[in-house]
């Protein structure tokens, strides 16, 4: 069964540094999402992306965050200047169409020191 893949599985970064989290959605999927889960808290929506532009973003997704689909397969989340509170598990998800369930990757655990 096709999977959403995320790299790296764990990223350790100094506060203030830029970090890029990478995702390869399922190949025929058209809608892409990033979520995050701070340790002990619920999974929260960050941003959705369709047709090469952001469809919706949450309050969390401020100017420090950006997303990009640089080629036909990758979908990236960039945090420009990381803060301690950005430490979390970040999940990528994708769907084929608007009424389909989301398929999630295994996540990237981001640790900011």
């Amino acid at each position, binding site marked *: 069964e096709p999977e*959403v893949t*995320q790299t790296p599985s764990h990223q350790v970064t100094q506060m203030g540094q830029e970090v890029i989290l990478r995702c390869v959605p399922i190949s025929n999927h058209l*809608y892409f*999402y990033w*979520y995050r889960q701070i340790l002990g*808290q*619920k*999974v*929260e*929506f960050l941003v*959705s992306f369709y047709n090469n532009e952001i*469809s*919706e973003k949450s309050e969390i997704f401020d100017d420090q965050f950006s997303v990009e689909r640089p080629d036909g397969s990758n979908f990236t989340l960039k945090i420009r200047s990381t803060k301690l509170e950005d430490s979390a598990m970040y*999940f990528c*998800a994708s*769907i084929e169409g*608007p*009424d389909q*369930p*989301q*398929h*999630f*990757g*295994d*996540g990237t655990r981001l640790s900011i020191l």
Partner: protein
Amino acid sequence: AQSVTQPDIHITVSEGASLELRCNYSYGATPYLFWYVQSPGQGLQLLLKYFSGDTLVQGIKGFEAEFKRSQSSFNLRKPSVHWSDAAEYFCAGRGYGNKLVFGAGTILRVKS
């Protein structure tokens, strides 16, 4: 506002016993509802979904869930729990623009 509530943070059941995990939702129209499972260090795996139609939906790994509009609930059930079912379970609803709104999760412990 759309919201999903899972009232139980932890549940412990004996292996072989039945299981019911509670989920309540607050949505204006007929919601699209999901249950996901997360094993330690793993991603979110879809167990089942409800979009419309039959209110009892079957999922993978022997799970089922029943949508009850009158109670605003979408509880997950399994007749006989296995030790490998120990994990965290998330109920989610589809919000505007297809984003998912998650409950806080229920951690299931299985004792032998």
